């Protein structure tokens, strides 16, 4: 359902991610662990493009979120002028592709690689890409610092995205229908109008109903009209999770959800995440809570130095780590 291919991320000359590929299956719970500064959070933020990967592609449900990375498509490389030049110099197909990939010969030469190359890049992009805002609606994200909207009450926080997006969809449909009506004036075979989604007042009503149900589910119904500044960290984080759930996401991304919490509030947030996991939600959890990761995960990724140093089931990774860095890290944190 979520696939990342060969992700690299540079901040200036500093390499944070150095080629990470993994696939997250439907209903799977994947934990990402590793030392501070190893790139865990950056990896998570690359999944919904809060950070744009320098190289590599992110796919969700067979749709491309990032621009096309030419190095991941052999036919694109073969269409480039650089490739044909190398071939004409007597290099074999494999060697030429390897050389181009290794030396990053296509980077920032988009216009110099010829028409065929550009056409192929554009074709792959047009066939597969999806607007990032639409993709993000299906990816809930929970932040370390909660990031509740300070200028909105709790219930407004939860309702905001469904209401704004619902109304925008309704208006877009109305505009499209108006266009069809206008074009029908000049046509013999009239085009049928498309069905309208919920109108704004229905959208609001549904969103509020849903928000109240979510608040009830997390046990915070009485805070509906309070502002975030009056709430405890644990309450804020639970509301942040409810806010992400309000969009009915297919996958939830947790970026160290308990790291900014007082110790006595960690439990309530982890319980909520555990509930979500039990309900079958696909989750990616960046965390320092090793016990929790071990308990809920189907798969654990250990990130070190910008690559996946080791991955496996929690039993494999926690009981019998193969990678020396993983062993060292776990021996330190599992004491």
């Amino acid at each position, binding site marked *: 359902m979520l696939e990342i291919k060969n992700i690299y991320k540079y901040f200036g000359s500093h390499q944070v991610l150095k080629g990470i590929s993994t696939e997250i299956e439907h209903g799977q719970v994947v934990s990402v662990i590793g030392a501070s500064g190893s790139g865990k959070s950056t990896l998570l933020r690359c999944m919904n493009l*809060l950070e744009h990967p320098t190289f590599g592609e992110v796919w969700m449900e067979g749709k491309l979120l990032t621009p096309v990375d030419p190095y991941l498509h052999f036919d694109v490389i073969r269409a480039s002028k650089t490739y044909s030049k190398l071939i004409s110099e007597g290099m074999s197909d494999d060697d030429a592709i390897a050389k181009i990939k290794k030396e990053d010969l296509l980077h920032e030469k988009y216009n110099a690689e010829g028409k065929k190359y550009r056409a192929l890049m554009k074709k792959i992009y047009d066939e597969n890409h999806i607007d990032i805002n*639409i993709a993000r609606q299906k*990816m809930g*994200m929970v932040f370390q*610092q909660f990031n509740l*909207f300070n200028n909105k009450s709790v219930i407004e926080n939860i309702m905001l995205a469904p209401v704004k*997006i619902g109304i925008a969809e309704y208006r877009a449909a109305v505009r499209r229908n108006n266009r069809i009506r206008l074009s029908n004036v000049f046509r013999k075979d009239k085009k049928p109008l498309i069905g309208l989604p919920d109108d704004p007042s229905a959208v609001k009503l549904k969103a509020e109903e849903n928000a109240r149900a979510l608040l009830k589910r997390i046990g915070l119904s009485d805070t509906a009209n309070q502002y975030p500044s009056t709430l405890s960290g644990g309450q804020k984080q639970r509301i942040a999770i409810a806010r992400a759930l309000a969009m009915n996401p297919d996958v939830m991304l947790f970026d160290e959800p308990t790291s900014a919490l007082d110790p006595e509030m960690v439990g309530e947030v982890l319980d909520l995440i555990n509930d979500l996991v039990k309900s079958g939600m696909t989750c990616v959890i960046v965390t320092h809570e090793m016990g929790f990761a071990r308990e809920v995960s189907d798969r654990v990724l250990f990130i070190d130095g910008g690559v996946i140093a080791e991955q496996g089931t929690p039993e494999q990774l926690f009981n019998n780590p193969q990678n020396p860095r993983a062993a060292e890290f776990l021996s330190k944190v599992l004491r």
Partner: protein
Amino acid sequence: MTIGSILTDMVKIFIKYWDVFVLQGIMYTLLLAAIAVLCGTVIGALLAFGRMSRFKVLRAIIIAFVEVMRGTPALLQLYVGYFLVPMLIPDMNTMPSQLMAFICVAVALTFNTAAYVSEIIRSGIEAVDKGQTEAARSLGLNNSTTMVSIVLPQAVKNILPALGNEFITDIKQTSLASTFFVGELMTSYKTVVGITYNSLSTLFVIGVLYFIMNLILSKGLKFAEKRMKAHA
């Protein structure tokens, strides 16, 4: 000359010429400052958004404009406005000269204020926690909805107090316009001194008037700020 005599002279001058000070001086001062702040805020907001846009050339032009306005004296800018505006709009030469001067000065002050306000608005927007934007974007809201529903309402709380200070600065800055006899408070000083030949007492009178205006304004701003914080 004793303090007592200055005080009695001040009272006498104020009673005799209060219409020049209040009806003309204060009115023009407030009008000029209000025009500068209102128009300056609109233009300043446009400049601030232009500066945060992705068009490099636009950004560079705006940065250059703001730096020039902040790096040159306001009086010089008033002079430039005084000579430049009638050149750009030749029809203005048919106007009464005082009205023309007033418009030129108002335009110059507006652009001066716009430069400062654009910085106030930009820093106010940038002071909003980045996490707020990220949270909104991660929910699938687009850039403009995020700006309008999340960032701007929070930025306004940073911007309004600084904008109030800009209004106070502008009220004081209008005194420079007396160079062109546009009728604001400092001009009424010149008018009255021309009759009474009593500089010090007249200066004190308009000083007190400036002070009272700004005192009322700053107290009002503090009150508004408190109200706003209470609702945060």
